[in-house]
């Protein structure tokens, strides 16, 4: 505690941060954004489009995390925390999606369609229960 206090009171020395890598990452991110938009205009199979779209997003996100968020060279404890998160996120994705897909045959899926410019806003659903007896 005393050492910490001493540290805290010492004048802060300027530290030079090299910003050049950030600029490269920035350029990379911009290119990837353009790429992901372009890819979406190709009429590939939906699964391929989804896969490529998410792959590019993952690359972009990891660029931001690695360089902007300084995950590169971060303490092990942060890696551990994010690793744990990743495992649980994977479970959270895997189980409900598996369940929903496995249950496709037992559900009546609907087609979600967007009609252009509806004439009026839909009436609010009458959801409340009727007055209680």
């Amino acid at each position: 505690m005393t050492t910490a206090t001493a540290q805290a009171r010492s004048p802060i020395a300027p530290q030079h941060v090299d910003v050049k890598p950030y600029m490269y990452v920035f350029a990379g991110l911009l290119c990837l954004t353009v790429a992901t938009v372009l890819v979406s205009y190709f009429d590939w199979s939906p699964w391929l489009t989804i896969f490529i779209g998410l792959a590019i997003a993952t690359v972009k996100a990891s660029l931001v995390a690695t360089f902007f968020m300084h995950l590169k060279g971060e303490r092990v404890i942060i890696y551990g925390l994010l690793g744990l998160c990743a495992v649980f996120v994977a479970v959270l994705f895997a189980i409900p999606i598996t369940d929903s897909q496995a249950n496709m045959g037992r559900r009546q899926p609907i087609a979600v369609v967007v009609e252009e410019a509806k004439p009026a806003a839909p009436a609010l659903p009458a959801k409340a229960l009727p007055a209680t007896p």
Partner: protein
Amino acid sequence: MNLNYPKYGWGLPVAASTYARDIDFGIRLIHYAMFAIFILWGIFFTYLLIRYRRRDGVPAEREHEHHPIKSLMPDLIVMVFEIGLIAFYAIPVWSRIKQTFPDPKDANEINVIAEQFAWNVQYPGPDGKFGKRSPDLVHFSNPIGLDRSDPAAKDDVVLANEIHMPLGKPTLIHLMSKDVIHSFFIPSFRIKQDAVPGMDIPVWVQPTRPGLYELSCAQLCGFGHSLMRAEVVVQTPADYAAWLKSQEPAPAAAAQPQNLGF
């Protein structure tokens, strides 16, 4: 024919379906094991409390060595028991009850459509085909929204809070719900399955004993949850056929849902 409810009392109700015995076997086995574990454990616990109570001049003994195996020993026993249960009981029986279904051709196929707070049953009639249903047609005189213009619907029988099943033949039930989640529970058959709106969940059961049984809702579904009761009538195949025939001439007279005062 005179049908009666079984005597309901304390303990498991009469086992009246083909797989009820399998479920009871598990419940009994696990409870015997639980009692055994708890009693042995309780004796040991009481012994420790008496043997190692504080006495003047007797200090506590620190253990000088620690054997992790020792503290994991009860675990090993529990684990072996559980692995056995999973491999030889839970997975096979589960797969038989919930994952394999009788062929619709050999089964008595019905739709059960739950609503707040009634069980509607749709029988396909002699043509073996269910008539179309639509939410827009739902009316108090037509609780399941049966489309009477559909040829398949002409001979359909719709009943409320009454399910008939023949003996010696599995009944394949398509569970559906109109509004919220309900749960289809016939204690004597050891059958329970949630009815989820937007889903058609198949369950099957083969009764082994003629009589009346009770169907209750096991998932909170609103203020009338505890009133959601239906009667299950298990008849001999001949009686069942006769009953079904007696229903046909008046298919339009669908039963009203229970009036609960709303």
